[in-house]
């Protein structure tokens, strides 16, 4: 199975072939000689963990990035895709996980955005666009909205269908679907699949990217697995077993950031009992010990971040209770949580974690101003020595404390954000995707730093979509799916396969 299976599905020639594509970014090789064949009338599943290089390949196929080496061959001829327009012109379109649409405009306007039909005097031909859209919707068998419906009235699933219709309006021969089912209910997924099968039967080649094994098995004919930017294997799906796929996706030793602690204190710092939220999660109970790293793993939409928001006082839970350091803990705002010693480093550091247009110094001191200055009056000297202490502790690289955070690299921004929260002197620190989008070096540093934190007696909750990270750092791992806790596993006794199985619903 670990070879290019050229005989995968009979003799038909592939429409699109990716040959030994390499993509280098400064300091990182995102893709290292990957290959892929898409055939007419076939759904091919692209599998891989976060960071395996799936999105990079999608961006190369849609003309957003240009490959460093290798070639893309379409209908037997090499192809160079310099822009998104190039890709469209060759009939390659992609539907992204988070759709970008014009919510105040109608379905028809969204579909024809950028290539409006025009009539006499170059005026917009509304009737023509509505008629064309109506044909597209009929072709897809869509009846529950019409060309004139504003996008804002549609559900997430319906927006995906508009994206599919838009792809069709470009005469798509290759359709890439990047996690189209991540935010859909089972019923919506089934409806989407009816349409995907219809397109397949019409001869479109479909590249299907998903983390949900149920969906992969329901829709795909063949598969390709990437790992760490490299090609691992491909084959026919009906000949493959889930276990084998998981092993191919995850199969490697976790080298860095190994957890070397032998024991964790019995003292419970934070106890959460049957916490429920109106829409996002239900029946969450867990305890966090002193000096422990508790990992939270789950796919996007599993309710992990929303749970952390409730613990941090950003949203109010519906029921349940929390006990922090022996007393009942009901934070009404982040300020409550911070003063009591529980802080949250948010996933989105650009919008929530850092104040980008303020200086490094001002960012680090922001939540601790009152305790630094000991009053209401700012104290420049105390502030800069405080900021310098945490900036050096985290080895922030910057020309001065007055440098704006927006000018720093992602890794250094994250160091500033972690420094900012550390400065409040927390007892519990929740890190939501602490290494998302930062380079390998900064990542290893953040991991090492997390280990130092727990050694100094802090307790850490780490939320991550990156399996090796959760497995390597945590003492115990809570797996969430669809707002519920599915398992609490001991990191030393579990495997990546088991965690993925719980997170995707195979177990």
């Amino acid at each position, binding site marked *: 199975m670990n070879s290019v299976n050229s005989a995968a599905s009979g003799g038909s020639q592939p429409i699109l072939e990716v040959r030994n594509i390499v993509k280098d970014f400064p300091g990182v090789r995102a893709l290292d000689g990957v290959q892929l064949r898409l055939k007419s009338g076939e759904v091919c599943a692209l599998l891989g963990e976060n960071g395996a290089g799936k999105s990079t390949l999608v961006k190369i196929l849609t003309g957003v990035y240009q490959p460093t080496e290798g070639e893309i061959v379409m209908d037997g001829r090499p192809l160079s895709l310099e822009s998104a327009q190039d890709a469209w012109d060759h009939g390659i379109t992609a539907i992204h996980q988070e759709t970008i649409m014009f919510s105040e405009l109608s379905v028809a306007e969204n579909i024809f955005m950028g290539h409006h039909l025009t009539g006499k005097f170059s005026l917009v031909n509304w009737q023509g666009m509505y008629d064309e859209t109506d044909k597209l919707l009929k072709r897809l068998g869509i009846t529950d909205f019409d060309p004139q419906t504003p996008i804002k009235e549609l559900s997430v699933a319906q927006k995906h269908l508009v994206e599919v219709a838009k792809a069709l309006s470009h005469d798509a021969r290759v359709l890439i679907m990047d996690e189209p089912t991540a935010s859909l209910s089972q019923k919506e997924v089934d409806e989407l699949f009816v349409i995907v099968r219809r397109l397949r039967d019409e001869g479109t080649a479909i590249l299907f990217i998903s983390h949900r094994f149920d969906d992969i098995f329901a829709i795909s004919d063949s598969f390709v697995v990437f790992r760490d930017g490299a090609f691992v294997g491909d084959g026919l799906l009906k000949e493959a077993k889930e276990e084998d796929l998981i092993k191919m996706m995850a199969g490697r030793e976790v080298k860095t950031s190994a957890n070397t602690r032998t024991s964790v204190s019995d003292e419970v710092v934070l106890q959460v009992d049957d916490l429920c939220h109106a829409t996002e999660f239900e029946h969450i109970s867990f305890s966090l010990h002193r000096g422990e790293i508790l990992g939270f793993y789950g796919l996007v939409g599993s309710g992990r971040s929303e749970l952390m928001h409730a613990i941090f006082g*950003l949203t109010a839970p519906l029921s349940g209770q929390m006990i922090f350091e022996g007393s009942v803990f009901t934070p009404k*705002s*982040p*300020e409550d*949580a*911070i*003063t009591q010693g529980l802080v*949250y480093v*948010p996933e989105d550091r650009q*919008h*929530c*974690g*850092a*104040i*980008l*247009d*303020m200086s*490094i*110094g*001002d960012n680090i001191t*922001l*939540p601790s*101003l*009152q305790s630094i*200055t000991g009053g*209401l*009056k*700012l104290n420049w000297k105390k502030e*800069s020595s405080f900021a*310098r202490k945490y*900036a*050096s502790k985290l080895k*922030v690289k*910057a*020309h*001065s*404390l*007055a440098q704006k955070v927006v000018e720093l690299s992602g890794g250094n921004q994250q160091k500033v954000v972690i420094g*900012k929260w550390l400065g*409040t002197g927390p007892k519990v620190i929740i890190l939501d995707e602490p290494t998302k989008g930062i380079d390998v070096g900064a990542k290893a540093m953040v991991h090492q730093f997390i280990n130092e934190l727990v050694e100094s007696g802090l307790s850490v909750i780490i939320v991550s979509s990156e399996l090796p990270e959760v497995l390597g750092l945590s003492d115990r791992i809570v797996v969430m799916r669809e707002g519920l806790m599915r398992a609490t596993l001991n990191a030393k006794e579990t495997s990546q396969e088991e965690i993925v199985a719980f997170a995707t619903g195979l177990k």
Partner: protein
Amino acid sequence: MEKNTATVIPNSLPVSFSDRFRSREALLLGLIAIVVVVNSLLSPYFLDVYNLLDSTQNISEKAMIVLTMTLVIISREIDISVASIIALSGVLMGAAAAHGADTWMILLVGLGTGTLAGLFNGLLVTQLELPSIIVTIGTMSLYRGIAFIILGDQAYTSFPASFEDIGQTYLVNGMIPTQLIAFVFFAIIFWIVLHKTIYGRRLYAIGNNPVGARYSGIRVNNYRLVLLTLNGVASAITAIFLVSRIATSRPNMAMGWELEVITIAILGGVSIFGGAGKITGVILAVLLIGLVQFGMQLINVPGVIMSIITGLLLIISLVLPIILSMFYKRRRA
């Protein structure tokens, strides 16, 4: 700092003279110098200390709202109901005086009206999460409408003498109007609040990134509520000085002041997108507009021309830095 600076991060890089020279404060100072020269050439009465100080009476009244408006805009909010609050509290003070209230009672009515009007704006913005521009467009019509219902096209013109003294007194050898003293007092207070306290730092954080500020444990809505209420209080103080100076209150008083106030704040370097601006710049902008208006009065220029000049100054102050920086870049390249 120690000699071994390899690992020590400096507080800040040295600011070059050309950077200082290209600051907004420097630009405003330059414009002020030009206005002073032009005005003294146009009128021999311009460079007279008594005249100059007397001329501050008008602008100082508006400028008190400019100070609170600066804080409001820095925190990424806006309030265009201020002129209507002046009219409403002015009319209610007139009504109180007409019903025989004494000076203290009149002041209480004026300040109370402004506080409640500002609080109402703030509650709508924070409790219903409505954008402040929409809320205050609504209350702008509402407050002035109430003033018209109370008084129609009439005017209150009788006030106790001790009330009229508030806006008509000159201190220090009869040179300095009370308005100027009040403005300087508030300017110092707001300079301290914005630049020397943790509240000021938090305002900049809120204006730059309200979501990030909330995650940082700042109760963003409390700040919004307090600022919009303060803006109402400042409008009431302006109303007190204005009404006591002209001993008249009408529903159509202070028409269009909201835009003048916002214009001065932006001229002073406050970013309309929030998160940036300094009290010093705003004070210089007040000074600039005050001097321009005084010069225009001296040579009897009609009010329409005045508003053209104000508009031009705003546009020049926005365009000039862009042109200068393009010029600067080209020379370096």
